[in-house]
C-alpha cells in the first residue's frame, strides 16, 4: 500500500538536496553560534577583571635596590598631574598606609610595619567605564615623563581584546542572519521548483477538492521532516568540533560545560536546528499557499 501522501512524492529531486542544505547550514550556524557563545563567555569573565579602576605603580627602589627617597614624591606629583588631565579619568589618589595595609593584609598579615617592606607607591585611578581613557597614550606619556611609573599593561590589551570580541560577535550575528536569509531563499526556491514539476498533480488534487490547507501542510511537514534530519546531522557534526575547540583554549579544566559553553547554552545551541526547521516549515507553508492562488 502506497503512502497516504503518495501523490506528493512524484518529485524527489529535492529529497536529498534538502537535508544536505540543512546539514551544511546548521553545521556552519552551530559552529558560529557556539564560537560566539564561547567568545561571549570569555568576554564576560575578562570584563569582570577589567574593573572601573586601574592602578599605577611607582617604584620606591631603583634597579640597584637603592631607596629613591625624595625622587619618589616628585614622581608621584608628576604622575598625578598627567593622570588627572587625561580624559576619561574620574579621580586619582595615592593610597595611604592604611589602605596599603588593607590591600596587603591577606598576604602579609595585619600587624606588619609597611615601612619595613620595599613596597612601591600605588596610585588608584578611577576611570569612567563608559568612556575609558586611551590607555596606550597614557602609558606612553608616563613612560617618557615618569620612567619609574608603570601602568598595569595587561589591562591595555584586555580592553583591546574586549573591543575585538565585540566586533567578532557582531560579525557572527550578521552571518547568522545571512544564514537565515539563505535558508528562506533556498527553501522557497526549492519549494517553487518542486511545485513547478508537480503542477499537474497539484492541479488534479485541487480539482478533486483538496483544500489549500491540506496541500500546504503536506508540503510543509515534508520540509519540516527533511530539514530536521539535515539539521540534526549538522548539529551532530558541529558539536564535537565545538567541544574540541573549547578544549584547545581552555584545557580540560573543570568541565566543558562550566567554562567554555554552559549547559543552558548548549540547549540553546540545540535549539538552532529547530529554529531552522521551523523557518523551513513556515517558508514552505507560505510559498505553497502563494503558489496555490494561481488555481481558481
Amino acid at each position, binding site marked *: *500500500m502506497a503512502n497516504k501522501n503518495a501523490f506528493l512524492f512524484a518529485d524527489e529531486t529535492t529529497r536529498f538536496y534538502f537535508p544536505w542544505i540543512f546539514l551544511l547550514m546548521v553545521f556552519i550556524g552551530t559552529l558560529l553560534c557556539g564560537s560566539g557563545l564561547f567568545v561571549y563567555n570569555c568576554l564576560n569573565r575578562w570584563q569582570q577583571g577589567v574593573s572601573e579602576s586601574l592602578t599605577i605603580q611607582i617604584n620606591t627602589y631603583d634597579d640597584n635596590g637603592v631607596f629613591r627617597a625624595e625622587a619618589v614624591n616628585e614622581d608621584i606629583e608628576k604622575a598625578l598631574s598627567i593622570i588627572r588631565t587625561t580624559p576619561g579619568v574620574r579621580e586619582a589618589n595615592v593610597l595611604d598606609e592604611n589602605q596599603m595595609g588593607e590591600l596587603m593584609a591577606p598576604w602579609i598579615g595585619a600587624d606588619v610595619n609597611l615601612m619595613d617592606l620595599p613596597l612601591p607607591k600605588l596610585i588608584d585611578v578611577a576611570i569612567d567605564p563608559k568612556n575609558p581613557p586611551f590607555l596606550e597614550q597614557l602609558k606612553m606619556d608616563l613612560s617618557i615623563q615618569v620612567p619609574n611609573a608603570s601602568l598595569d599593561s595587561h589591562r591595555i590589551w584586555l580592553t583591546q581584546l574586549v573591543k575585538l570580541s565585540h566586533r567578532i560577535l557582531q560579525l557572527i550575528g550578521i552571518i547568522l542572519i545571512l544564514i537565515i536569509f539563505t535558508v528562506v531563499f533556498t527553501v522557497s526556491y526549492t519549494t517553487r521548483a518542486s511545485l513547478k514539476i508537480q503542477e499537474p*498533480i497539484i492541479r488534479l*488534487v485541487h480539482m478533486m477538492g483538496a*483544500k489549500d490547507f491540506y496541500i500546504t501542510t503536506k508540503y510543509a511537514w515534508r520540509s519540516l521532516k527533511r530539514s530536521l534530519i539535515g539539521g540534526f546531522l549538522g548539529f551532530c557534526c558541529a558539536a564535537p568540533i565545538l567541544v574540541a575547540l573549547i578544549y584547545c583554549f581552555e584545557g580540560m579544566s573543570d568541565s566543558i560545560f562550566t567554562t567554555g559553553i554552559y549547559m543552558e547554552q548548549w540547549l540553546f545551541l540545540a535549539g538552532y536546528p529547530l529554529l531552522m526547521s521551523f523557518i523551513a516549515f513556515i517558508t514552505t507553508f507560505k510559498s505553497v499557499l502563494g503558489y496555490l492562488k494561481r488555481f*481558481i
Partner: protein
Amino acid sequence: MTPNESISPVIAEFNGVSFRYKIGTDVLKDLHFSLAPGSFHFLTGESGAGKTSLLSLLYMDHLPTKGRVRLFGQTVDSLKRSEKAQIRRQIGVVFQDYRLLNHLNAFDNVALPLRIIGEKESDIRKHVTELLAWVGLEKQMRAYPEELSGGEQQRVAIARAVIHKPSLLLADEPTGNVDDAMAQRLLYLFLELNKLGTTIVVATHNEGLIQKFGFPRLHLHGGQVHLTIPRNSDISKLTKGEKNGQ
C-alpha cells in the same frame, strides 16, 4: 427556459456564459442551459467545438469570461476557496487525456479522491478493489499507468471519477479508447450511478452510443449549444432524471 431559481434546484446553470482562453476568440458564446438533478446528457460537437472547455467551466477549472455559472445553487465567482473545494468534492471528472498520476499504481490512482476527503483506509481498500474489478482491472490493480493499455488507463480514469459517488459526473470522451462492448459496459456504469441520482454529462463522438442510450443531447456548434431530445428513445426506461428543455 430557465426555471425559477428558488423553487427548482439545479445542479448546474449557465446564464449568458461566454468563454475564451487568454488568446483567441470566444469559444463559447452566450450560453443558457441548466442541468437538472439526476439528468443525463450527451455533449456533442465537432472537434474543437468547445466540449472540453464547457466541461472545464463546470468543474471550475476556468471562470467564464462573461455571464454566470451556478453550481449546486451557488454562483461560482462568489464562492470562497474552501467552498469551491467542497463543491469540487461532489464532482467527478473523466479527463479526455485521463490525467492519471504515473507514479501511482491503478489502485492508488483510483483511491486518490477518497484519500483527499479523508476516507478510512479499510473502506478505501474495499471500494477501490470492488470498482476496479467491475471495470475489469482486478489483475492490473498494482500496475502503473505506463504498464496499462490506453483502454485500461481510460477505465482507471473512469473508476477514479466515480469512486466517491459524485453528484455530478463529467466525462470527456470516456469511451474513445475502448471497444464497443466495453464502451457499453462503461455507460451502464454511468447509468447505475445516474439511477442513484448522479447528474451526468458525457462528451462523446460515438453516435452509436448516443443512438443506443438515447439521452438528450447538448450539441455545440459555433459557440452555441442546442438541446435535442430524441423522440424515438424511451428515456424513462433508462433514467428517472428530470429532463429540461425548451
